[in-house]
């Protein structure tokens, strides 16, 4: 297969991700794990490559793929028109639901209500774009854990992020009764999450799409989804 020539380093699938974003990618006892880590390993295996992960701060994650720091990014990245102009996307592997998380007292349940409020979001994320679209002010916070900390400490009015990430957070923090979480899937359409690739890497994209198809077929994708998200979100919502 001639996608080999697209690779940053030979015989290796180099994958960029945050590594601090539970349950997508995070460390457990020092070892990288999470849905997208397992997915990356499975992808690599299908392609007959070794998976190599490069944890990168969100701020520079997308810039890194253009700079050939890794072959693709698996980091709950959503397809958007602007990104499509500059990058290449694989077929989607999950459909991520937005959640609006805010302190209980604030009673923020409608996405329209965030107008003029300050939301903690990572620079250039989809979450930030949604928040901006509905008129919120952005407080640039790199990591999800930090964003939630800011909300709970009352230093941000709320945050929009993926519902799955919130569930993972709620699981490891016994007490989340101070938080109010609204599933925004009714208000903002769930978004396609795909691997992000460099514009020129058409061959690699084809190969990745092929591999994803096989992973969906053999049930690996749904299995991983259930394991890390507690639900199968790999199918397009009706």
């Amino acid at each position, binding site marked *: 297969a001639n996608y080999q020539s697209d690779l940053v380093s030979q015989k290796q699938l180099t994958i960029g991700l945050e590594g601090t974003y539970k349950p997508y990618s995070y460390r457990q006892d020092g070892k990288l794990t999470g849905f997208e880590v397992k997915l990356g390993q499975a992808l690599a295996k299908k392609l007959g490559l070794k998976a190599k992960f490069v944890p990168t701060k969100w*701020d*520079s994650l*997308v*810039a890194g793929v*253009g*700079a050939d720091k890794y072959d693709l990014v698996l980091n709950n990245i959503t397809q958007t028109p*602007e990104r499509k102009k*500059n*990058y290449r996307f694989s077929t989607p592997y999950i459909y991520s639901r937005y959640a609006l998380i805010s302190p209980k007292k604030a009673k923020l349940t409608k996405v329209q209500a965030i107008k003029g409020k300050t939301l*903690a979001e990572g*620079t*250039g994320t989809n979450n930030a774009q949604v928040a901006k679209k509905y008129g919120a002010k*952005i*407080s*640039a*916070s*790199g990591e999800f854990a*930090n964003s939630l*900390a*800011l909300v709970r*400490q*009352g*230093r941000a009015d709320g945050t929009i992020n993926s519902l799955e990430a919130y569930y993972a957070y709620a699981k490891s923090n016994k007490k989340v009764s101070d938080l109010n979480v609204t599933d925004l899937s009714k208000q903002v359409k769930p978004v396609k999450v795909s691997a992000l690739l460099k514009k020129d890497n058409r061959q690699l994209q084809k190969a990745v799409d092929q591999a994803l198809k096989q992973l969906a077929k053999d049930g690996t994708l749904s299995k991983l989804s259930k394991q890390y998200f507690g639900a199968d979100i790999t199918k397009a919502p009706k």
Partner: protein
Amino acid sequence: MWSIIEKSLPQLLLAAVQYTIPLAVISFTLGLLLALITAIIRLKQTRGAFKILRAFFSFYVWLFRSTPLLVQLFIVYFGLPYLKIKGLFPDGIKLDPFLAGVLTFSLNTGAYASETIRAAILAVPTGQWEAAAALGFTNKQTLQRIIIPQALKISIPPLANSFIGLVKDTSLAASITIIEMFEVSQQIAAENYQPLLMYSLVALIYAVICSGLSWLQGQLEAKFHLTTTGGES
């Protein structure tokens, strides 16, 4: 390219005026004050309870000089809210990002500048102390009227360097959600996918600001007749 620069430059400059410069100026002013107090307390010959105060200030200087600024910022902004002290801070210490930034930068500058001022006070020749003592000045009068004015003059070049350093260090404030200049450049890069251009642009702005400050420093030193070490080669 030019259109991108034209579009982003105003945003970057606004961020500089709103955050980068105020952060640097306010923190430096507070830091200098703290540094002066710290330097004097640490230089005092002491007895009894005062020793504890001195040890405290020595600890403070040690702590802030031997840990990275970035870690300090994280501790103050993300860490302190978890520090729950019954009675005093039952809910932890939660600071607004700008305040957290000013606090950290001031403490950091204070620690380094106190060493600068301390060295400057020690660099004032012993003869100045003796001359003042021989004229009947008390220690306090000597410090205030003779030593500190001379020490501050000696400190001008290193302190000016510290200020320029602080301007550059404000780029770390992005990590505690302050949207200073570098953060803005990253946000723009996340939109237009031109990181090299955006980072270079922001580097250029820093370079212009810092060179301007260096020039001012030169003027200041010339005014106070401070000459840098000279020689022949």
